[in-house]
């Protein structure tokens, strides 16, 4: 089973929930993926022993100046303006290239080959008996999605079909989130009971509905703000899976990089209960 954790709004507690869930179900085989490749934080809490660091590249065109006759076809077909053809030279803008391969495929003279351009790394290791994989986007790179895709593919290759995969996604509602949650059996949306939390929760719900992924909500810092998130969930028939109270002690543990379930053992039961509820809801 693949369970992703997303939120819309940042800083609501995705990593806290993903890490705590994973640590609470260790009687199962667990695979943990940090797909927030722009700002991967799960390793701060899980302290994995990284055994392998794999560079991740996207293919970008290289022009063979001998074969090229500057016909301009590659620039014409490129949807991302990553190529410009001058009378005696072809300029490649690798940061704009999405790696679709169109120029290579369509060059009439076979003058284009593709070479890898590193956009980040994939770090593979073990933590608390779990398999752990995280992506880390190189600073200055604009496109996280190919890296997230690489992490998901690597995880698929290594995964025992009986294992539970927990995915920590990035905030927002655009392409990196879609790539991280795609294909999951269930998505936990973490929110907080504030107008910001609600606004961004509603956006995230729309994304997941569009992708057809069943979802439930965790309300973090429950007790602060107002109860409009509750009303929203009720109106939209979204189960509230868990509430974590607004508690300074939890905030301090978080600040130190300590998962709540390691210090407050009662939360392990709560997270196991949440897991059971998710499994039951998927059987219906």
């Amino acid at each position, binding site marked *: 089973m693949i369970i992703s954790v997303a*939120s*819309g*709004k*940042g*800083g*609501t507690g995705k*990593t806290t929930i993903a890490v705590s869930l994973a640590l609470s179900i260790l009687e199962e085989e667990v695979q943990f993926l940090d797909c927030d490749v*722009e*700002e991967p*934080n799960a390793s*701060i809490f899980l302290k994995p022993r990284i055994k392998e660091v794999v560079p991740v590249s996207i293919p970008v065109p290289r022009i063979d100046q001998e074969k090229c006759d500057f016909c301009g076809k590659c620039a014409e*077909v490129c*949807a*991302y303006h990553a190529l410009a053809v001058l009378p005696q030279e072809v300029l490649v803008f690798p940061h704009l290239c*999405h*790696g*679709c*391969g*169109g120029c290579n*495929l*369509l060059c009439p003279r076979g003058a284009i080959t593709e070479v890898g351009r590193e956009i980040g790394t994939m770090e593979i290791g073990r933590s608390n008996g779990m398999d752990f994989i995280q992506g880390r*986007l190189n*600073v*200055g*790179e*604009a*496109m*996280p999605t190919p890296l997230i*895709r690489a992490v998901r593919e690597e995880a698929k290759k290594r995964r025992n079909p009986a294992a539970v995969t927990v995915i920590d996604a*990035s*905030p*927002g*509602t*655009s*392409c*990196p989130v*879609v790539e991280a949650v*795609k294909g999951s059996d269930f998505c936990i949306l973490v929110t907080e009971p*504030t*107008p*910001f939390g609600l*606004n*961004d929760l509603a*956006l995230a719900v*729309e*994304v997941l509905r*569009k*992708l057809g992924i069943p979802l439930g909500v965790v309300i973090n810092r429950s007790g*602060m*703000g*107002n109860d409009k998130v509750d009303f929203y969930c009720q109106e939209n028939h979204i189960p509230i899976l868990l509430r974590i109270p607004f508690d*300074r002690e939890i*905030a*301090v543990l*978080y*600040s*130190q*990089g300590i998962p709540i379930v390691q210090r407050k053992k009662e939360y392990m039961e709560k997270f196991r209960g949440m897991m059971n509820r998710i499994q039951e809801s998927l059987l219906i």
Partner: protein
Amino acid sequence: MKQVLVISGKGGTGKTVLTSSLAALAKGAVLADCDVDAADLHLLLHPVVAETQEFWSGQKAIIDDEQCINCGRCLSLCRFEAIKALKNQDGSLKKIEIDPVACEGCRVCYYTCPVDAIRMEDRLSGQLFISETKYGPMVHAKLGIAEENSGKLVTLVKQKAQEIAEADGKPWLIVDGPPGIGCPVIAALARVDLALIVTEPTLSGIHDMERVADLAAHFGVTTKVVINKCDINWDNTRAIEKICQKREIEVIGHLPFSEEVVRSLSVGVPVVEFSLGAITEEISTLWRKIESSFQSEGVVLSDKKKAGF
């Protein structure tokens, strides 16, 4: 006109709360919300929309079932897993489908389809709004659900906001940035005079602050740091100060944890207009520091390398 961008790396550190307060303090700013896929600034500034523009960006492939001969060529060439083969019960190919969410509009399938069964359609990816608020004009946007090209929409929001600021002769453009370090953040950093990094004294906050500070440095943008909820963990607050000292980044404000912030959110106003407490005092001091930093080094700043896009 000076452009101040609020970013954080990590989400939820207080970018929008701070941006809204700066908007209230600046008196005569143009405001822009560049967190286009989870925009929240409007919840505090209550813009009245004067003009809505459609944001068309990129294309998506559409397949004509009548013409398609199920040859599978597009299936083998698409690198974005956007083309799906629906199978019959006996395993034979029933139909080719294109997933509009996964399609990145590269046109490879369009160019290579042997029977021209694929056409490209322009994509309506979002909306851009030009609005009025009691604090000044505001440009904001809404990215379509599960759409891409958020970087381009950010660029458009900023362009509009700059145009308005220049036409109206406004002294400030204050921009609420997106979390992370990817394309929307890179787009938001363009032509910025000062990037304010809001962080919090948590290990995650520190880690993410360093990544986004590296990004700003990479594009030659001047940064200053604000430590929000500084009293949650003083050891970490000191650690942030040390890191900033080493990187020669000024820590321009220490904001205490304040329940008044949560209450101001529920009421929907910038906290500086809600509270008379320490939080308002700290933010006001911080704003005065920003103002005077431009007064004292205004000439120098404009000569500094700006991120050019």
